[in-house]
């Protein structure tokens, strides 16, 4: 029997607000344990949460970018369970009245674009981190680092619209690109600021009802997500084929073995005893708030990708690479705006620029300004420098930040278009290679390239290629 895969993802994205969601502690990652804490995020007696409005605005960006409905009122709720990294004994989340609902995100699949439904987006606070004693003296103890406690999260729940591990990974990538464009999350899966759980079930092809699902956790990379889902598909299909039944449970992925193992069954699942958080008023988001967030919305990556293809005429692949990160797209667009040919600019940005910088974060301060890169591309077009020389000029611009014309002048990199000088070089090359001259004159025209190469080499690559070819042709035929 053939089976159909049904996958839904729950993404947890840490919002990049300066302070935590319910107190004013810093959200910075990597500080000494328990230095970013206060009585509120430590759950000390008598402490109360106060909502950080910046966090809500960030979450609204995600909601607007995915076309969600934003109800005028959402409600925070307590999710109760005991764990040492949860100092209040409950997480403040949203339950039956989330911040946003009914959105979607479009992804590219082998069969073209596909719209993935988004069930809901809600706000919540992150828990701390348990650290189990690592050296001998500490082995008997576990420690808790509360720095992460209270860092704002949005949880984005997708509809079960994903039908393959590849689609799941693509959805995740697309969402990561989106939150990074919106500048609301840094999308770092290893540091845990962008996390994902997956629900997966199988059903006989064509069947309407869903099969029994399992929930997969502990996947901290795109690859892991894909591998975990692939493994789970095999596992579930094997069980179904051999007449068994899938048990509804939560399973942990082990990246070392590439397998999943049962963590807890449905019966062992927590009863979270959700109820409205009495310490916070319902969250009212009015038209004015939404409108003001709208004015801060950047062009979304997918729109931009399409616009680059349509307006600038660059290939889909180029548009995808250039819009992968907002700073790259901004840089590229600035180069084009400064007058560069879009395709030439695309080539330069995708190859030389991305090679030169360690990360796109460095682009805003990058030595080669879009204006200078556009000027350099213009010099190639006008024949003032050759493509090969341009690479030297580019490297020099990256080093010094100088304008390309200044560099070519200073370094003597301008094209040699002087026919007398070129003729002299041509004569030397012809004289030095009698064997090849003979071959050429005997009709082996391919040898012509050899002469061009030799002459170019002799000028240090500075010869105007068109003029050089003409002179060589005349002299060889003569």
């Amino acid at each position, binding site marked *: 029997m053939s089976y159909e895969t049904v996958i839904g993802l729950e993404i947890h994205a840490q919002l990049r607000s300066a302070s935590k969601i319910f107190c004013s502690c810093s959200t910075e990652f990597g500080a000494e344990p328990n230095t970013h804490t206060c009585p509120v995020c430590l759950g*000390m*007696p*008598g402490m*109360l949460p*106060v909502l950080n409005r910046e966090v809500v605005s960030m979450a609204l960006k995600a909601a607007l970018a995915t076309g969600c409905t934003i109800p005028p009122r959402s409600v925070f709720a307590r999710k109760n369970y*005991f764990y040492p990294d949860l100092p209040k004994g409950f997480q403040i989340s949203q339950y039956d009245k989330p911040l946003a609902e009914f959105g979607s995100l479009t992804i590219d699949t082998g069969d073209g674009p596909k719209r993935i439904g988004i069930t809901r987006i809600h706000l919540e606070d992150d828990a701390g981190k348990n650290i189990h004693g690592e050296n001998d003296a500490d082995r008997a103890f576990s420690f808790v680092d509360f720095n992460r406690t209270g860092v704002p999260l949005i949880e984005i729940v997708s509809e079960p619209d994903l039908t393959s591990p590849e689609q799941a990974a693509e959805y995740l990538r697309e969402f990561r690109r989106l939150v990074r464009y919106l500048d609301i999350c840094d999308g770092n899966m290893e540091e845990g600021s962008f996390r994902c759980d997956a629900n997966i079930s199988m059903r006989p092809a064509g069947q309407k009802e869903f099969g029994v699902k399992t929930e997969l956790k502990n996947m901290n990379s795109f690859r892991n997500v894909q591998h975990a889902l692939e493994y789970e598909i095999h596992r579930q299909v094997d069980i179904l084929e051999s007449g068994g039944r899938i048990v509804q449970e939560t399973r942990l992925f082990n990246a070392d073995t590439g397998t999943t193992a049962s963590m807890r069954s449905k019966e062992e699942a927590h009863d979270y005893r959700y*109820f409205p958080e009495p*310490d916070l*008023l319902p969250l009212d988001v009015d038209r004015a708030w939404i409108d003001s967030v709208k004015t801060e919305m950047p062009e979304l990556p997918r729109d931009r990708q399409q616009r680059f293809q349509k307006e600038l005429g660059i290939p889909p692949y180029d548009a995808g690479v250039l819009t992968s990160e907002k700073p790259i797209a901004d840089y590229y667009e600035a180069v084009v705006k400064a007058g560069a040919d879009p395709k030439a600019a695309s080539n330069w940005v995708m190859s030389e620029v991305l090679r030169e910088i360690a990360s796109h974060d460095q682009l805003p301060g990058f030595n080669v300004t879009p204006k200078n890169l556009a000027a350099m591309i213009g010099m190639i077009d006008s024949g003032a420098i050759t493509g090969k020389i341009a690479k030297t000029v580019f490297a020099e611009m990256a080093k010094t930040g100088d304008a390309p014309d200044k560099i070519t002048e200073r370094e003597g990199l301008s094209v040699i278009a002087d026919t007398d000088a070129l003729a002299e070089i041509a004569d030397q090359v012809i004289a030095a290679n009698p064997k090849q001259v003979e071959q050429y004159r005997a009709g082996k025209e391919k040898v012509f390239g050899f002469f061009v190469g030799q002459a170019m080499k002799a000028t240090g690559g500075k010869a105007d290629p068109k003029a050089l070819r003409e002179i060589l042709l005349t002299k060889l035929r003569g």
Partner: protein
Amino acid sequence: MDLWRLSIREVAGLLAAREIGAVELTRAMLERARDLDAELKSFILLEPESALRMADAAQQLIDDGKAGPLTGVPLGVKDIFCVPGSPTTCASRILQGFVPFYHSTVTERLEQAGAVFLGRTNMDEFAMGSSTENSSRGISANPWDTSKVPGGSSGGSASAVSACQCFASLGTDTGGSIRQPASLCGIAGLKPTYGRISRYGIVAYASSLDQAGPLARSVADVAIVLQAIAGRDPKDATTADVPVPDYLAACDGNIRGLRIGIPEEYFAEGLDPQVEQQVRQAIDVLAEQGAQVQPVSLPHTEYSIASYYIIATAECSSNLARYDGVRYGLRAEGRDLLETYTATRSQGFGREVKRRIMLGTFVLSSGYYDAYYKKAQQVRTLIRNDFLKAFERVDLLATPTSPSVAFGIGERIEDPLAMYLSDVYTTSVNLAGLPGLSLPCGFADNLPVGLQLIGRPFDEAALLKTGEAYQRSTDHHLKLPPAAQSSGGRE
């Protein structure tokens, strides 16, 4: 002169005129509180060192001409308010050894006003109870008859004020915990409107019901303390941005034309006839002063106790989850995490607290939420609507505070339902988020009877005005309990 007999206004006047010194006053009150406490056990802890330090600071304010109405005035603080450096246990073993390094907004405002905290007053553990018998730190006695309870949960705060161990005290009221002990101890106690006083730094019992407020011997003294602590606090999102009027100015004694509603459901079966008689007489006094009295109906009153014990226990089951032995307070080590949790919480919480945590866990659990918690919230709305409807016709309501006078120590402790009924007239006010004032209105069997005034949201002024008018023409509030007089001759 018996300084301890004076009102806040009188004693602040003497301090401001430098006829007495703040340190000298505090020293005398500390001594009196200690002496009387051998019998009354109003205080869990007297803190002479910090009290004298505060008195010193108060004297400085006075000397600098910056004294306010509470500068140098010794107060009692319920053991539920966090005060830096002061052990705050909520009368629970689980918070043994917990010393906050932060202030509740209420105590911070009082400290800034120059008040002096003598120590921590006794209470039912985590404010759960109506007799202060649920304290892990001993049972407080009623100054009018030490074989009786002072009420609860702010029983220590009430007995301390009643016996003149301090001039006023702070309590909290979730279902009657200020008003009922005030009533049983013959003093005034105000539960302000929900959102009037910051809950920041007050150990939470039931967050949607908890509200701090003053207990004092006169309504005017209540007004003075309220003035110092009321108002919006950015650290408590549920405080309201409603202007705070001049409460003492509102106490002008003029209630001519004021419309007072008498809810018939509060004078039904279960009310001690002697209590009813005193309360009705008090209402007559108000009528004599020009108030218009008329009957009103609050038809959902009978559901208030049930709704209260669902909502309050649900919230407490969540609020008390943080006491897990991981970060502060008691930790009973177990072999693993679960054992540490269960051992800590089994040993740390008392019987009533455990009972309420279990009740609350049950009513929130999957499959029962709709039948209990959700239903209770719906009833809560109906109860609030009852009041708002009544307030279309009247300005405030007058009722008994408690169906009976103080009962005997040990009399109800084995019967939780009987104990819960002590709050039959007070819980509705918390469910509706309204202000309620209890003030002494007579005696039955030589024990004080309390009159409860219930007002519109944020209209504490109307209650104080009415209470003041009543106290200007009566003297119940001036009578001192035997326990207060027994050592009165010493000063």
